[in-house]
């Protein structure tokens, strides 16, 4: 329960700033979104001046990001995380682009369109999940916006998409945020 408690506390503060009330359930649902392919209003999200995810809960690992890719990849506020939901792989031994050692990257992903404040361009971000170990439990980043029921898998954050091939089958660990390319 430790991470769950931390999740409650950290999320509650950030969430309270922008919503009336959020639950850990929403967070849990969003965790599964972390393992999910959800093209959640990518254009609308990309248009947001600032991502408004949950709390990070961990310090930035390593050196500061280069100016062209600004921000802290272990923070929910990092620009690439505009549509992410799950544990940030940068806090779990990987990075925003790389899975932690010993995991497998899910071939199934969901995408978002995020605005890079440094160059003013929108980028398509692929939120590949890292699978094959139990939940990392660090740097949970959640949101429930645009979520619908399981009837619409592409818009539901309650699926675990760590599935679909022999390697990345079910156990969800964390989520990356890889740049696919500039949005046209």
């Amino acid at each position: 329960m430790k991470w769950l408690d931390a999740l409650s506390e950290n999320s509650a503060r950030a969430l309270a700033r922008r919503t009336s009330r959020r639950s850990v359930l929403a967070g849990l649902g969003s965790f599964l979104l972390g393992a999910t392919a959800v093209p959640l209003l990518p254009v609308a999200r990309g248009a947001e001046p600032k991502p408004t995810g949950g709390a990070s809960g961990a310090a930035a690992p390593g050196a500061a990001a280069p100016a062209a890719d600004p921000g802290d990849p272990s923070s929910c506020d990092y620009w690439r995380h505009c549509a992410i939901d799950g544990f940030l792989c940068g806090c779990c031994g990987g990075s925003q682009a790389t899975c932690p050692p010993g995991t497998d990257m899910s071939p199934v992903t969901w995408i978002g369109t995020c605005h890079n404040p440094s160059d003013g361009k929108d980028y398509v971000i692929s939120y590949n999940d890292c699978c094959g170990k139990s939940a990392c439990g660090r740097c949970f980043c959640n949101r429930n916006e645009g979520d619908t029921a399981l009837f619409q898998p592409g818009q539901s954050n309650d699926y675990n998409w760590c599935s679909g091939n022999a390697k990345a089958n079910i156990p969800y660990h964390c989520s990356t945020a890889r740049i696919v390319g500039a949005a046209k």
Partner: protein
Amino acid sequence: MRLRIKPVVLIEALMSCAVLMGSARAELPGDAGRSPEVATLAVPASKHWVWVNDFVFPHMADGMAYLIDGDSGRYLATLSTGYSFAHVLLSRDGKRIYSPETYFSRGTRGVRTDVVTLYDAGTLKAAGEIAIPPKRASNMPMIANAVLTDDDRFLLIYNFNPAQSVTVVDTQTRKFVREIETPGCALVYPTGPRSFFSVCGDGSLSLVALDDAGAAQQTRTQPLFNMAGDPITEKPVRLGAIWYFVSFAGRIYPLEAGPRQAAVKPSWWLTSDAERKAGWRPGGLQQLAVDSRRSRLYAIMHRGGVETHKDPGKDVWVFDLSSHERVQQFALKNLSTSIQLSSDAQPLLFSIFIDGTDLDIYDAATGKLLRFVQHVGTTPTIMVTP
């Protein structure tokens, strides 16, 4: 006159008494032969028992289900149910518990094996196992992840890998029968002894009629639900031939569905215009429960914005399903994400929060808190009653 005794004298006297009493008392007999080594459960189960299912989110390889007696608050038993567990299913004769389960040969890696484990309801020992395709959906647990047909003959399990299908298991022969493709359609909702439906992403239904061998005939309806704007949840409850779906905002859509046709009856709201403006809406994971004897619908309610449809609530509103009138409302002791009713004439209302783990037990008729049970699991999800 006051009797005065020195403390030392008093202690000596008490010690003497204790020694005398101890020597006079017979020794406790050994437990061997007097108490069974392992407890068993009454069959059929009490109607006031509840299974609390737990997908144990921080350690999903270790799914569990807990059995609690609502009358005493006593914790009765546990099942260990594998990875990404949804919930158990109880046979109507009370003798069997079915549990769709997923395992990996090395814990979280290795060969994946999906099975339906059959537990004996009296001993809770695994009494059998049915191998099924390793495709069982992994998602926030829903009651519609797996269901029994109305006569218990077939067990239906929703698959997502991410192709969508339904596994059909024959409970009589204890064999996997077939997989029914349901592209674009999710979950399983029974409509009779040989039929069920899945709900498709465009708001239509995939109606499935089974024969006695489990062979399927499928009918795709026109879109019956509007999935844009204020979509329905996947958490309806059933009373007879009607499935009561609820939208995120709290509008009830009664769906009458059979093997080959379905229609949505006139909708109605859980809330008045003023209550909606004030932000009242249903929320939670198992957010509705139905009392079939009194035709009452129970809903977890809270105040919040449009994206709080999974948020917990601390209020329960009760509606008459004939008149659509709210007939009762009461505040809960704790936040709740799941409620369930017992199925007897004096129903209990069970309430639990996925992040709280206290099981609260209410008199469903009055809303009075009867008792609570602490530390029930880790992340409790769906509750199932006999």
